[in-house]
């Protein structure tokens, strides 16, 4: 079980969290202007990287706040946490 650091509550067990999948997917402002392929891209297609993955998490059985995290999909290590709406931190 992973240990995840909620930016508001600190380190807690994974069982308190819910993963929201890939982060930084903005909802199109004018969905009607998109063709089916563009809409499908927003709706269905997700990155599946081997390595750093930028994702959304919610401390669902805690403060219920959403936040972003960068997690390595190979080592399961969390590399960074940052708030919703913030730009991801620069990594080397």
């Amino acid at each position, binding site marked *: *079980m992973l*240990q995840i650091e909620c930016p508001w509550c600190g380190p807690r067990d994974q069982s308190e969290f819910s993963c*929201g999948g890939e982060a930084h997917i903005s909802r199109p402002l*004018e*969905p*009607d202007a*998109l063709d089916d392929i563009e809409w499908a891209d927003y709706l269905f297609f997700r990155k599946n990287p081997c390595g750093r993955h930028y994702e959304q998490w919610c401390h669902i059985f805690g403060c219920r706040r959403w936040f972003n995290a960068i997690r390595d999909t190979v080592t*399961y290590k969390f590399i960074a946490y940052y708030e*919703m*709406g913030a730009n991801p931190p620069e990594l080397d």
Partner: protein
Amino acid sequence: MTQMLRTPDAGHVKRTRPISFTFNKRQYWGFEGDTLASALIANNVRVIRRSFKFHRPRGIVGAWSEEPNAIVEIGANNTRVPNLRATQIELYQGLVAHSVTPSKWLRFDTLAISNVFSGLLPAGFYYKTFMWPKSFWHRYEKRIRRLAGLGYAPSGQDIDTYDKMHYFCDVLVVGGGPSGLIAALTVARSGGRVLLVDDQSEIGGSLLSKTETISGKLAKYWLKDVITELRSYPDVRLLKRATATGYYDHNFVVINERLTDHLEHHNERLRRERLWRVRAKEVILATGAIERPIVFCSNDIPGVMLASAIRIYLLRYGVLAGSKVAFFTNNDSVYHTALSLVESGGEVVGIVDIRKNPKSTIVERARSTGIPIYDDHVVVAARGGFNGLKKVQLARANSQGDLILTNKGELKCDTLGVSGGWNPVVHLHAQSGGRPEYDQSAGMFVPGKSVQSERSVGAAKGHIALRECFVDGVEAGKSAALGADLKLGQIPDIPFTIAESSEALKPMWEVPPSQLNLHNDKSFVDLQNDTTASDLRLAVREGYTAIEHVKRYTALGFGTDQGKLGNINGAGIVAKYLGVDISELGTTRFRPNYTPVTFGAISGRSIGGYLFDPVRKSPIHEWHVMAGAAFENVGQWKRPWYYPRDSETMDDSVKRECLAVRGGVGALDASTLGKIEIRGPDASTLLNRLYTNSWSKLPVGRCRYGLMLGEDGMVMDDGVTARIGDNHYLMTTTTGGAGPVLTWMERWLQTEWPDLKVYLTSVTDQWAVVSLAGPDSRRLMANLYPDLDFSEEVFPFMSVVSASYVGVPSRIFRISFSGELGYEINVPANYGYSLWSTIMKFGESLNITPYGTETMHILRAEKGYIIVGQDTDGSVTPHDLGMDWIVSKNKDFIGKRSLFREDMKRDNRKQFVGLETDDPLLILPEGAQLTNEQNRSIPVDMVGHVTSSYMSVELNRSIALALVKGGIKRHGGKVYAHLIDGRIVPATIRSPNFYDPKNKRQEA
């Protein structure tokens, strides 16, 4: 009370405390401190059980969890525990144990016939034979289960309770041997919070069976001092009988502590086991090493065992493993054991050493004692009789250690201690993500690079010498303390141990098969699963090249011992046959659990009773109980299902309740419906974005039905939302949808629209809701609230007013889920019971009838009102439901764009319809598949399925709701429902609104 092989004084069992126990219905005696295995050996019980596949007699091989053979069950009926290793069972007064063996007779096992025909049972036999023809499998299966004899499950409910413990520490030390203890001491002196766990009944590991002195003291005294010091630190915890069974991500380690299995009497105030869920900043793995056997012909005869086990039985339990003991080794370690045996009065008939002329100090000492040493020799075969080993056959190895062997006679012995070197217990390291690496010079797999914050020490790292263990332990303690941000305290000195010269081992997995092996018997690699060296050879010959595949083909390492003795030898042998280096082949993956864990420990208190899942009850619950309601589980909620009167059947009750609502007035406890307060200047905007219809123009005091879609355009939830004020709404959701819908709304607010000024609050539990339905409900409301005007003009359908109930603020909604005139009264939850009771009193003259969810379902089905999740399944759009009227064209909302995808235009999408069977008394089963044709030509095209189905007393016939391909345009057409009994029955498609299609009654 004689124990034939008990020494006069060796070991540390308590000889003043004799213990009586029973094995296979015979009574024996042992001492306090014995294991079942050590006591059986003391009583010269050689054959413990028959083997899994060939039914060969088997004896004790090891002294702890590595034991593959000595599997027994203890207890009876509901306390029966199958599949225990005799080597791990602590002896207690009155213990009753049985062999886990299918046959009553250990000596004359009729099934051992399969041994004679064993050539017919090669590797892959089960795959090859039993999978064809398929229809025969059920016949074979019974036979195999009887053959296997793996014991019986307990017959009743477990009488024990189990606990879970969540724990955090700076440093977790797994293993209380020399390196683990000194590591723990290093961290403890640095002020760290330490958890040290050891799986045995005494902490000490190898020190419990060591003859060396430590800093001039006997090992046991050094051990005592260290434990005393560790116990003096308030932040240090020592657990014995606690096995670290799994190492998971982020230094999460699960530890199974056994608390009562060693006790004579069941005590219900004690917990049988405690499962520790530990998050450690740093982990030190001091898990030791398990001796590796050498594979040779007939190496499974009772009496052939690990040399280290002989040492432990002697020095810890004071038991001679046999009367005439021989050893077979490729390293120095057995010489210590042989000397100790001689000192305790045992007879050592010889040491067979693969190495040519070994010269280390300990070998010289053994030689000078007069123990015959056969260097440059191997044991090619063991020979035995009914009671186990009789002699071993020797041969001389050639220079390459392979192929050509010369017969060098026999050695008469009843016990053979084998040592092929050591396998460090790298299991936890591997589970943590590390990859064990093969150390060519040491001839063993050792821990590789650490992936998590862990390090291995001592024998677990391949360091067998005591001094190395101490050095490792101190170093690891320091690095772990620093890793956990501790300040180093006084570092323990490395204890003084006598250094002796030693000579490297010479690796050998298997004594090569040779023509000397006259009776041509098997060489076992995995004793528990009867996997032989020739099985491995066959697998290689048949083209298997990966060790994981060989494992699955030959069942190598599949037993309850997880191949602790066999796996590495198996890999070595396969590598040899394949002609590759073992480092290249690698090992099979080490998976949790290290040793078996009981289901009880895993489930803890989360079974059966009320702790499994919370039960949610409405504030009116007790009334329903008193009224004798039958309850239905809806999510975690208990809801009244129907209220049987006198001797009514469910059908009777439901009919009566339906008629009462349609003809008079009924009351439903609707408190469980999800309720969400939405407040803030952007409340309307949020609703506009989440619901398919428009909310901006809804006047205060009015309600509206809404459909919520996923972004994929599929219906997710529905419900009525009321506008309480300009910036204030109260949303209702389905009972099951309350949580998910709130989470869904919060997610959009937090992640996508943080600019919206809206607060969401779940108020499901804060309000009790009584729903009144039926033509008489208006009169009842007027009685309840004499000051309010309930006329159609003042209080029309889909409106809400605030009112006072006994001085408490309440709200009244005029809405309907039954198709009748209806009201819903919301009061603060604490007043729910009072409100309901008052309504029942006021409604007496109107013959008010409480009704349950079943009636509610029928009433709504008669109106064709959907239940999301029953009539929809995540692939249904508003259009599929025939609800285009609720989809706004003038605004964007979640899911809208998806409604214009190509797939949404298909005219054969499954659509929501009503069904009437030709036979009005036939109730279709929900889930029944529908076809267009009555004849059954396979393949049949399924065109839909029944989603809801009831008998309607109002309509005097059965009704059903269904999803049918292109159904909306097929009203009047026929479909055929396929029933489980094979009948195919016709039904007519129609509008789902069966009752009062113009909705006059609810809007009356």
